[in-house]
């Protein structure tokens, strides 16, 4: 535990006894004995000590014996070794004057001491032989100033304070490691302590941190090179400890052990210091006084708070988020619904798994009112965690809507692609990107309006929230982080096995869901839903291990969740299709034609027909086809969409390709062009040829659409042969089953 005892001269060797401490003397003798020792204390410096010992001795032999005793005294030799050169020489002169002790004998003793202390950390820049580093050797205190030896030995004022680098702190965000120095100091004249400050290592050398940190009281001396001398002096006089501060959440290998970092440090026994921005300071996995089984049942009980099509994705997101940067998980869950449908409360329940204080929806970590940069940084630092971004509400003005759309697009696209914006540093090098490493859960009164963004999100409309069940979960928020802590502990204990298991299950679930969702679903949907299913697998396994669910309940939970996620995936297909660019274009164009703002002239008219008053001719028509001038139609549709704050997010070429694929457009016979050439009044016009029924009524009308998920009541339409009524009945039964979890969740039960 202590350092190995260095080789010492015989006189300095340990005596193999328990040496006294002052308190032992109090205990074994009396405090008066201590006072007696204090009364006969000797001077501290080597020269004064030698004077006190030798001045009384006039006899050569006795004086020599006393001098030798001094050299056998380890503290005396230590004092001699650390004296300044001049003072040491004076002390040696005293020891050798009128004694048989030679200077060589003293030097030999000093060398023995040097060997004995070899390898020790030097204190205050001094070596064991008393010869110090030139920069520190020449530093002295003069009238409240730290001074160096300047020109011709004159003191050069460095500063009116003394400072030391107490610790070299490395801030590690998992991508970048930045060093900062924690510096403490005091004013030399008054001894007043200066508050400890952290200075970026890159800024330390310039010494420009002194005034911002310590104000006008701290004075750096004037003159060329003084700042650099001061910097060197501080560095050489410091013996900083080394610390690592983690500035992110989530799984991390610390000292060779996988652990989960939260604001309390580490979820396992590994010691780790975590400092995160204010928005993330509520992320803390604390175990409650309840049992693990009670906590896990309470967590699973959130399934009873709303239809399974809502709560299964929510529960899956809570636990899938733990693997967000590992698998990775790139789905964005988007809860939307009218104001007052309790979507924020539901999101808060999910978020509270990462810190019970976030059960209050006012304590959610993010909001869409934050800047895009702030959101980007939060989603980067909240690694392997669920982050709720609350309150997406349609903006009132077109400009605000565009800004809002741009922010949503950037954050969701980054999350979906696991990519961060590249940043250029001042030296033209590229800074490491900060990609999102969390699972983002957004709430809002509307779904995102951009089609490609919808494809990256899993849209869940919130309705029919059971307020009693919601209150039951909210009553014991401390159980939710406890449940998550159990899952985290299980992952930390068998990290590699869990990751391999989650990967294989994700791949299998993606295959199964693709088969169930069919070709109509967006290619990403099955993968997105499968990611949430992995979360369900995680919690159901750990709940089974903890005794919260038996094997049959675990399997039922998985089956129920799978069916609910299939329903969510099917609805996602209809929602994504609803707002494709082709849909937007055709619906807007037909609306403009129906309103009389645009007009298709009859192709059969022998003379150029005049449009109705206030209408603009956009092309021609016959009984079967509409022939639309592409430039005019694009211009009018774009203008109309701009008024509503939207826009077509694709180029005309991509739009027409989608319309061709949907058979809403007839291609040129040569296949080279997306339009057709039409002869009108003897002139050739390139037009888009569309079936007239597409222009007269929006395609994909309600009758053809897939109805919303299982919670929606009574329609006669079917989803791949299965009645949605059947979904309702099944959902009610299943919800009742999981309400039993809530009934059992009370820690007092």
């Amino acid at each position: 535990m202590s350092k190995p005892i260095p080789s010492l001269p015989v006189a300095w060797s340990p005596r193999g006894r328990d040496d006294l401490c002052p308190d032992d003397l109090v205990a074994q003798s009396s405090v008066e004995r201590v006072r007696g020792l204090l009364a006969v204390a000797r001077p501290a410096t080597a020269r004064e000590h030698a004077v006190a010992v030798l001045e009384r001795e006039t006899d050569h032999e006795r004086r020599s014996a006393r001098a030798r005793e001094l050299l056998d005294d380890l503290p005396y030799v230590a004092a001699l070794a650390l004296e300044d050169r001049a003072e040491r020489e004076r002390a040696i002169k005293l020891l050798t004057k009128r004694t048989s002790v030679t200077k060589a004998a003293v030097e030999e003793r000093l060398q023995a001491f040097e060997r004995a202390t070899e390898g020790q950390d030097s204190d205050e820049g001094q070596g064991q032989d008393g010869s110090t580093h030139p920069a520190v050797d020449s530093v002295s205190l003069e009238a409240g100033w730290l001074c160096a030896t300047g020109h011709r030995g004159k003191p050069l004022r460095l500063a009116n304070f003394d400072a030391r680098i107490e610790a070299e702190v490395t801030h590690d965000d998992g991508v970048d490691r930045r060093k900062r120095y924690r510096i403490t100091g005091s004013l030399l004249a008054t001894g007043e302590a200066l508050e400890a400050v952290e200075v970026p290592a890159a800024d330390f050398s310039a010494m420009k941190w002194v005034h911002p940190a310590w104000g006008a009281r701290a004075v750096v001396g004037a003159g060329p090179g003084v700042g650099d001398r001061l910097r060197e002096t501080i560095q050489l006089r410091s013996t900083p400890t080394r610390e690592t501060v983690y500035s992110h959440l989530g799984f991390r290998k610390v000292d060779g052990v996988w652990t989960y970092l939260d604001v309390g440090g580490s979820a396992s026994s590994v010691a780790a210091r975590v400092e995160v921005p204010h928005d993330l300071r509520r992320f803390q996995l604390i175990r409650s006084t309840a049992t693990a089984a009670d906590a896990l049942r309470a967590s699973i009980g959130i399934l009873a708070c709303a239809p399974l099509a809502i709560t299964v994705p929510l529960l899956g997101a809570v636990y899938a988020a733990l693997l967000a940067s590992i698998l990775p998980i790139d789905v964005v869950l988007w809860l939307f619904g009218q104001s007052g449908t309790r979507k924020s409360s539901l999101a808060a329940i999910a978020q509270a798994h990462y810190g019970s204080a976030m059960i209050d929806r006012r304590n959610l970590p993010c909001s869409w009112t934050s800047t895009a940069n702030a959101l980007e940084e939060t989603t980067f630092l909240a690694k392997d965690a669920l982050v709720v971004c609350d309150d997406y509400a349609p903006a009132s003005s077109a400009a605000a809507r565009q800004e809002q759309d741009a922010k949503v697009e950037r954050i969701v696209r980054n999350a979906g692609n696991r990519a961060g914006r590249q940043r250029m540093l001042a030296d033209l090098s590229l800074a490491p990107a900060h990609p999102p490493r969390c699972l983002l859960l957004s709430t809002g009164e509307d779904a995102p309006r951009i089609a490609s963004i919808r494809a990256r999100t899993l849209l869940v409309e919130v309705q029919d929230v059971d307020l009693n069940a919601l209150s039951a979960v909210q009553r014991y928020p401390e159980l939710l982080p406890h449940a998550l802590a159990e899952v985290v502990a299980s992952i930390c204990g068998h990290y590699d096995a869990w990751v391999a298991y989650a990967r294989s299950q994700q791949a299998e679930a993606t295959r199964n869901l693709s088969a169930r969702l069919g070709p109509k679903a967006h290619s990403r949907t099955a993968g997105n839903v499968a990611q949430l299913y992995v979360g369900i697998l995680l919690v159901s396994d750990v709940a089974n291990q903890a005794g919260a669910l038996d094997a049959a309940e675990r399997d039922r939970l998985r089956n129920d969740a799978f069916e609910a996620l299939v329903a969510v995936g099917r609805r996602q297909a209809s929602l994504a299709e609803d707002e494709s660019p082709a849909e937007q274009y055709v619906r807007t164009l037909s609306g403009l034609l129906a309103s009389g703002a645009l007009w298709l002239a009859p192709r059969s008219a022998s003379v150029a027909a005049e449009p109705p008053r206030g209408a603009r001719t956009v092309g021609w028509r016959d009984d079967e086809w509409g022939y639309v001038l592409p430039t005019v139609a694009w211009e009018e549709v774009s203008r109309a969409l701009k008024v509503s704050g939207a826009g077509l997010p694709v180029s005309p070429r991509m739009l027409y390709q989608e319309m061709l694929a949907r058979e809403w457009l007839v291609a040129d016979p040569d296949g080279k062009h997306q339009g057709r050439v039409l002869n009108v009044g003897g002139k050739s016009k390139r037009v888009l040829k569309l079936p007239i029924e597409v222009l007269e009524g929006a395609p994909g009308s309600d009758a053809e659409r897939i109805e919303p998920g299982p919670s929606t009541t009574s329609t006669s339409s079917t989803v791949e042969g299965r009645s949605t009524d059947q979904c309702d009945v099944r959902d009610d039964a299943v919800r009742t089953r999981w309400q039993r979890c809530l009934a059992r969740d009370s820690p007092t039960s």
Partner: protein
Amino acid sequence: MYTYSVSHVENAQPHASPAPTANAAVSSAPLLSADHLAFLAARGISPDLSASAELYSVDPQQASELLGDTVASWGIAVACWISDASGLGHREICCVRLDHVAPGEAHCARPRGRPRPTYLPTVVTRETWRDPTAELVVVDSPIAALALAAAGIAALDIGDDGAPSVEWRGRRATLLYSGRRAWNADVALREVRVARDLLGRGAKVLVAELPTLERGGAL
């Protein structure tokens, strides 16, 4: 380095500060065992003073956690005031006084990898720290400082950061280190450095020696 000030001492009133932060093991332990109470009582440290100084008994496992090393002895954990970036300071374990150590090792074990902090017994009044005519005794363990302070001798243990910012100019300061200074180069060096530090601050520094068997220092 001068991170301790009189204001910190004033703030460190009995039970006025939260339990030490780096010692979850300690906060849940019983305060002091009967053996430790007897050990401290022999040194004039009453149970009330032990409580106000936040002394705790720790078992070998807790001691190992606090020290960051494996130890096989019970001990008394001693908390002290550490200034930090917040400016308010906090308490941390500065030493565990181990009951049993191997020959040659110090009883007062420090947490591994941390600088040795300064220990100022709360029983010493703020007037004493401010009054340069009051003699201070510098010892090398917190328990020794507390024992002397309990007996009316103003004492402190100066750590790696240097002397605290009490008024040193013109003050008589006597170093009274353990008997290990006679053969342990670490202890001897630390004593000399503390002495030089105090001399640099204008104190009148003296060195006292405890008796040892070899010097015929029978108790």
